[in-house]
């Protein structure tokens, strides 16, 4: 198992007849991950959707910065939120770590920017990509799950729109 987990492990002579048992998979190296991230970047740049965007953060392809505009007709309308993506070496088999960089007042976002979203945890699928994550987070903004909040105050005031909006604006700070 360890061979499959550690992407730096390169077995030298695997063709000694015990193939099929426990041999490193060709997919699980940095190259395959980089290739997929490149493809995602290409399709993101080609897409016409103005309300989300993402781009690698500097030289490192394993760390991205994304932006999400608040959905129309929601309390977050006209607000731009920055997010950080950290891709593990086992991406896309494991979900990236996604956090809000822009402070966000939301029932499912804590003060550190951590997000409680099922598709980033147990319901992750290798099919999801940066674009679908951004769209899910955008949808989450206007459809919070108030039953399991990270921010109790936000969950309580969610139904009182004016008060809620005041909290959102007080916390919001463009970065």
């Amino acid at each position, binding site marked *: 198992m360890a061979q*499959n987990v550690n992407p730096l492990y390169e077995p030298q002579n695997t063709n000694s007849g015990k193939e*099929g048992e426990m*041999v490193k998979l060709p997919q699980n190296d940095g190259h*395959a991950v980089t290739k997929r991230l490149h*493809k995602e970047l290409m399709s993101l740049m080609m897409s016409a959707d103005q309300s989300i965007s993402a781009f690698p953060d500097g030289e490192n392809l394993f760390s991205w910065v994304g932006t999400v505009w608040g959905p129309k007709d929601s309390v977050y309308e006209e607000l731009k939120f920055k997010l950080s993506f950290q891709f593990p070496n086992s991406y896309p088999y494991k979900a990236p770590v996604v956090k809000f960089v822009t402070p966000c007042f939301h029932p499912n976002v804590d003060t550190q920017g951590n997000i409680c979203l099922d598709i980033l945890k147990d319901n992750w699928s290798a099919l999801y990509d940066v674009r679908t994550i951004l769209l899910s987070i955008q949808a989450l903004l206007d459809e919070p799950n108030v039953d399991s909040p990270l921010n109790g105050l936000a969950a309580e005031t969610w139904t009182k729109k004016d008060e809620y909006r005041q909290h959102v604006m007080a916390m919001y700070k463009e970065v």
Partner: protein
Amino acid sequence: MASSSSEVKESTSRGDGGDRPNTKEDDRKEDNLLECNICLDTAKDAVVSLCGHLFCWPCLHQWLETRPNRQVCPVCKAAISRDKVVPLYGRGSTQQQDPREKVPPRPAGQRTEPESGNGFSGFGFGDGGFHMSFGIGAFPFGFFTSTFNFGEPRPNVPAQGTPQYMEEQFLSKVFLWLALIFIAWLLLA
């Protein structure tokens, strides 16, 4: 040689002028259809899940490995497993592959034989009627009378699943264990 042929290609492709972008678009769409849902590349060692989704076998295998307790299709989250995928064999596509890329081997296609009436019966061997019995008589001499009997005349095996079958299985297990205990006792004494 190579350069001249590429020139020819170039000139012919230049020839079709107007409808070229269109066909290119079509080509790309066509390509997308055959892309693995995990690596987003053209599927290598392609397999299709029973729910109809295409993957590279190495990609899907790793997906199944990362979550052995909850094996679901990445696309539609239908239950999926190693036995529930069908390999796609293109014409002559599997020959010149680096064997390393074959690891782990793709599950084989399942080929069901067409029904062909009743198979032969009569030999105790052919239809799975292999019996091993271990008899114990007057100890210790009877111990050596244990026999293997291959297809000797003996009552027919009851059909699988019937209570009688279960009972016989149980009995044969009990006697096997008894025999093993005797052997162990013999050796230790």
